[in-house]
């Protein structure tokens, strides 16, 4: 998706230093200080993970840390919110995977 470099009211984007990072084994470029979610969207990537049980694709929903939909594994740490995490040079990011044996949802109190 296009970046908004020049904005009528907000002005020009400064600090355009680039960093590179990996997402699911592929290299991408980001601007320093931007979030993983913003960097991936700027690279045209909306899908951040799949639902652990059903495997349905998921991306950002709230963009401010509330919904947990954007959770990814960052430098081997799982469940990190892409919308709150700044990209860093050399960062490796992985999508979560679908659980191999999807737990069947059982009805009843646990």
């Amino acid at each position: 998706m296009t970046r908004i470099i020049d904005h009528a009211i907000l002005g020009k984007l400064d600090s355009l230093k680039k960093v590179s990072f990996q997402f699911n084994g592929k290299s991408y470029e980001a601007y320093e200080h931007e979030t993983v979610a913003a960097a991936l969207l700027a690279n045209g990537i909306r899908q951040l993970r799949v639902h652990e049980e059903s495997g349905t694709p998921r991306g950002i929903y709230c963009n401010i840390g509330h919904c947990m939909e954007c959770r990814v594994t960052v430098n081997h740490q799982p469940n990190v919110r892409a919308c709150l995490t700044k990209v860093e040079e050399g960062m490796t990011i992985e999508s979560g995977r679908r659980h191999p044996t999807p737990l069947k949802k059982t009805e009843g109190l646990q």
Partner: protein
Amino acid sequence: MTDLIVIGSGPAGLAGAIAAAGTGLRVTVVDEFIRPGGRLLGQLHQEPSGEWWNGIKEAEKLQHEAHALGINIRCGVSVYNIETAEAGWKVYTNEGVLEAPFVLIATGAAEYPIPVPGWTLPGVMSIGAAQVMTNVHRVQAGRKGIIIGANILAFAILNELQLAGIKVDRVVLPEKNAVSRQAGEPEAVIRSLLNAAHLAPSALLRFGSRLMKNETIRNIGTRFYPKNGLKINGTPLQLRKAAVEIIGTEQVEGVRTVDIDAYGHVIPGTDRLYEADFVCIAGGLYPLAELAAVAGCPFEYIPELGGHVPRHSETMATPLPGLFVAGNITGIESGKVAMAQGTAAGLSIAKQAGKQAAASGRQLEQAIEHVRTIRQQVAIQFHPDIELGRSQMNEQWKAHEGTSVQPGEKIG
């Protein structure tokens, strides 16, 4: 050593920190976002005076003031629990435990959705998500979007997307159901938009003036609402269309709509499919009060404030010793009100901490008065009956004054 921990660096938290630090208290602010400012950061609208309200600038001003006072602002820090300690409160974060006699919870609001079939697809986001992506991160949410839901936040953000050169194809209503309720009824939507139109930003103003205030004419207005909608800066506002499904396999490809009557009933045989690569759902805002709940604070249910709100006084105190609240956690209002509430909270805390500057004089009373004044002046008001909600809370506070509450006693 810290005297006050502020949770949330939005307008309320920062203003509270600044007021408290101004009297000599040592203040630490924590926030999980990448930079200070909270939801102020995404805000960009033209005031009725023609001046621009640029949230990023406002946040920077507050940040500089805070730094000048030696306030420690820590971003990227999430608070996951809060408990009473021997002298005050323990605040648990992903970077360790903080302890202080006073805590100000200023965690703001969260958005609630109106679920639409297909809303888990990548490319579907809350309207606020699009605001943050556009104005804070400066990445376009997509090439062509559809907004589902017509409320004041949706219009403010529609304007912001347009300013950033993002095409919003149309605004439609959610289908009327048990969740959307009045948000799915054109008649009710027009009524609520008109309520806001006299004070709202430019686009809405122009829109509002084209509809009539008289009840019967308004009813006719909704019935004969132009089929293709009225245009807001080129984007049709189609109050007589409802989104029934968001289409796509890997990500959003479009939205299926049906035509509806003035009360939200579906008109059969009117299915249409509109292409889009992103969809924004505009449900509404509610106070994000989870930490107050975990701390054991009693709550009141006041719809005018946005739902469940921690019980608090006009001095922003909760019934729990040393625990204060300010901003949208106390009720959904605009950033300026949150800021004024923060100042009142900071002074109130300083007074309790025995700081001379706040204890003597009329600073605190003036700050409380200022909250009321700002409330009457602001350009954006989320609930028309906000004053009623505020006075209900004050009554509840007075009714319970003197009854002791055990901190840590879980409610819910």
